């Protein structure tokens, strides 16, 4: 039977553009982009969604999602999102941030946005490293992990312990939803899809801030093959960053 005669059971979501991703082979940013696009389609949000893009490897989100988008200074996406949502309450506002962006330079902005119960959704890609800038230590880098700025491996005393964002944000009263999922297997991806929907739903129902943390691979800066990197994600990252839903409105 020719393809033409068959039913397409899996295709690129409507709100994903045709542009090829610029990510490295095996990088999960592309996957997260797709999940975001699927969720936008699922809730039919493409005509009200506004993406607020943090600075990191996801900075070119606007090339890939067919929605209104706004660049934001590194770490400040939740503040920019606050400005958009407050002045445009009918829009659906979603930020896209990496672990450096959200958990280092943007610590204050995410905490206070959650604390004010801003009606925004945060897509948080935790790949335990600064991808875009070439592999420096992130706030989520694992103890002992070698990066370009922790050549001997991260020492928690002095370099800092890994920061557990989903848990931290879930302690704030204005957070409606906070969960951590992973991107490295199809079962995890399916859980991730559900969690992403809840994070969107929180905003749709005006319950408060929704955050989804996605454990992701950065093969390039982990200096691994894609295969090795998904194995590391499973074997090492999940220990430090337990999967689960930490708050659900």
């Amino acid at each position, binding site marked *: 039977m020719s393809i033409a005669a068959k039913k397409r059971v899996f295709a690129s979501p409507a709100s994903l553009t045709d542009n090829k991703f610029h*990510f490295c*082979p095996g990088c999960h940013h592309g996957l997260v982009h797709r999940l975001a696009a699927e969720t936008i389609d699922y809730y039919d949000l493409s005509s009200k969604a506004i993406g607020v893009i943090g600075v990191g490897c996801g900075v070119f989100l606007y090339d890939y999602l067919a929605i209104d988008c706004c660049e934001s200074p590194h770490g400040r996406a939740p503040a920019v999102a606050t400005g958009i949502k407050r002045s445009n309450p009918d829009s659906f506002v979603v930020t896209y941030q990496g672990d450096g962006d959200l958990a280092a330079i943007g610590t204050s902005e995410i905490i206070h946005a959650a604390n004010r119960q801003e009606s925004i959704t945060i897509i948080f890609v935790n790949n335990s490293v600064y991808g875009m800038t070439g592999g420096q230590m992130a706030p989520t880098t694992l103890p002992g992990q070698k990066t370009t700025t922790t050549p001997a491996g991260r020492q928690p005393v002095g370099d800092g312990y890994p920061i557990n964002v989903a848990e931290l944000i879930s302690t704030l009263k204005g957070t409606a939803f906070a969960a951590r999922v992973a991107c490295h297997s199809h079962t995890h991806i399916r859980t991730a899809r559900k969690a992403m929907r809840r994070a969107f739903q929180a905003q749709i129902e005006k319950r408060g801030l929704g955050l989804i943390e996605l454990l992701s691979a950065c093969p390039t800066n982990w200096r691994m093959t894609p295969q090795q990197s998904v194995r590391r994600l499973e074997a090492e990252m999940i220990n430090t960053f337990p999967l689960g839903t930490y708050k659900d409105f």
Partner: protein
Amino acid sequence: MGRVAVKEERCKGCGYCLEVCKEGNLYLDSTRRNRSGYSVATFSEDKVCSGCALCAEICPDVALEVYR
């Protein structure tokens, strides 16, 4: 019977789809490279594809379409 179309220029040869397909329907063709220099995933027409779409689900580059 399923069938998978590879958007070759999107594929980066990460190999995730190969690993997830229980039927072994996909392989990296090392003799070919796309414009970006990657060996690309290739669908073996001669094997049995359930159309389960796991390969597409796991592909980080949205390089696969699945038909059934």
